[in-house]
């Protein structure tokens, strides 16, 4: 494509490139307990983004000097599969992946009761299997489900979504094409029950008014994702309670 023909990201009717309105989420679905070996696991699809997360622990820490005497350590790896992107990505962790692993870990650590498990480690692994924008957010959504599936006590789930600004319009849950051409991209994550923002990044430029509006919009999306997360957990565990009652 030559630089002259600019992609139309929002048409005159306010429809986005994939037909959504500005405040629409992409189709999203999630499932927990998708892996056998992991203590907890979850799979999340949000539009074309596909993410799987697994939790191991609390378990013994190696090397031992990484352990804390008063709480569990949390380790987190956000990683993209080589085949997840348009061009093959080298499997070696990039600077981006290292940074995202850190901010995701900090977000998750804010809801885990780490003091219950001193001298142990909780390992959280997020693998992006297909990237179509919003992978860190889908990763967080999946990771908090995986923590719940592992039975690790948490104050709240974490739901996340990215808000973007396209042609002056604030839009919810941007996909890859929108991300490439947008004026601003603001991933955010919340512990929704506490109204706490636990991850917030901004790549681009917003006015102070737009900043508040963007957070408002993000919150709306996050509440919808949060409801879906709770439904997903209930579906699995209510069913298994019923089943075990039949057996006993």
């Amino acid at each position, binding site marked *: 494509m030559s630089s002259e023909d600019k992609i139309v990201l929002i048409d005159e009717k306010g429809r986005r490139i994939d037909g959504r309105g500005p405040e629409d989420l992409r189709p999203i*679905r999630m*499932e*927990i*307990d*998708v*892996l*056998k*070996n*992991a203590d907890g*696991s979850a*799979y999340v*699809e949000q539009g*074309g983004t*596909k993410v*799987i*997360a*697994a939790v*191991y622990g609390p*378990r013994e820490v190696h090397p031992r000097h990484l352990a804390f005497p008063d709480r569990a350590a949390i380790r987190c*790896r956000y*990683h993209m*599969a*080589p*085949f*997840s*992107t*348009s*061009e*093959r990505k080298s*499997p*070696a*962790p990039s600077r981006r992946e290292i940074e995202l692993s850190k901010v995701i870990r900090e977000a998750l650590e804010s809801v885990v009761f780490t003091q219950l498990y001193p001298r142990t480690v909780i*390992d959280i*692994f997020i*693998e992006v*299997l*297909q*990237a*179509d924008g919003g992978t860190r957010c889908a990763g967080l959504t999946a990771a908090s489900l995986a923590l719940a599936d592992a039975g690790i006590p948490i104050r709240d789930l974490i739901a996340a979504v990215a808000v973007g600004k396209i042609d002056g319009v604030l839009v919810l849950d941007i996909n890859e094409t929108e991300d490439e051409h947008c004026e601003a991209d603001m991933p955010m994550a919340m512990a929704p029950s506490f109204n706490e923002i636990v991850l917030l990044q901004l790549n681009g430029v917003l006015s102070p008014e737009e900043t508040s509006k963007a957070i408002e919009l993000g919150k709306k999306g996050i509440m919808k994702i949060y409801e879906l997360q709770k439904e997903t957990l209930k579906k699995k565990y209510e069913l298994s309670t019923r089943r075990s009652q039949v057996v006993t």
Partner: protein
Amino acid sequence: MLIPKIKKKSILSMLERDLRLDGRSPNQYRDISVHVGVIEKAEGSALAKIGNTVALVGIKVGVGTPFPDLPDQGVLAVNAEFVPLAFPTFEPGPPDENAVELARIIDRSLRELDVVDLKKMTIIPGEKVYIIWLDIYVLDHDGNLTDACMLASMAALLNTKVPKAEADDRGFIKLNKDEATPLPVNRRVVIVSIGKVGGKLIVDPNLEEEQVLEAKLSISIGDNGVVAGMQKTGLSSFTQEEVEKAVEIALNKSKELFTVIDEALKKPSSLWEALRNNG
């Protein structure tokens, strides 16, 4: 992960009567399923399950320069990642010796049979060729990764579409995904792994069986009935008679695996379908 001696004893005593802990007979695979087309963004993909072992393969097609000694051939690169989600002792970092060994076993099996017709993968002979990146992702490890990864690799190659290479006005090569043709595949190959325990041969050892195996032989079988590669692993040994027996079993079992691939190719699947109710 250690297996208690008592479990080893029961595995061995059951095998005396040709029985296995999970109810299989010595020559029986666990349930096998293959899903193709699970990563739409990749040029080819497949997820294979053997019992609780899950392997995902994605294929990316790129443009690059050929090897100087093979100027008229495309490049095939096989890589395996044992991602830490799959198993408690898999650690983040570059592939360890097991992952490298596995990738090389699969790489050799594909190469020796010219599974991918690399001669048809040149763009400008001597200058630009297609590069086929085959990346193996182990998602859940319950033994016999070799067979599962080979199965997913073969199915993914058969699922691959090669985008058309077009030169723009400045001579840069671009790939056009809208005009894609199936990857030229000459033939199919599968791997059948056979374990030796207590002097008995068992097909498709699961994780707890692998932990008591004396040795294992992974045999690559082409769909023309040839033995296209072997890898013996483990600390103990095989006799010539045992190897001959294993090859005979592998030839026989390979037919089942080829059928599974054929069935999977009939219908593209999705990761959602493949992963749901897996745990």
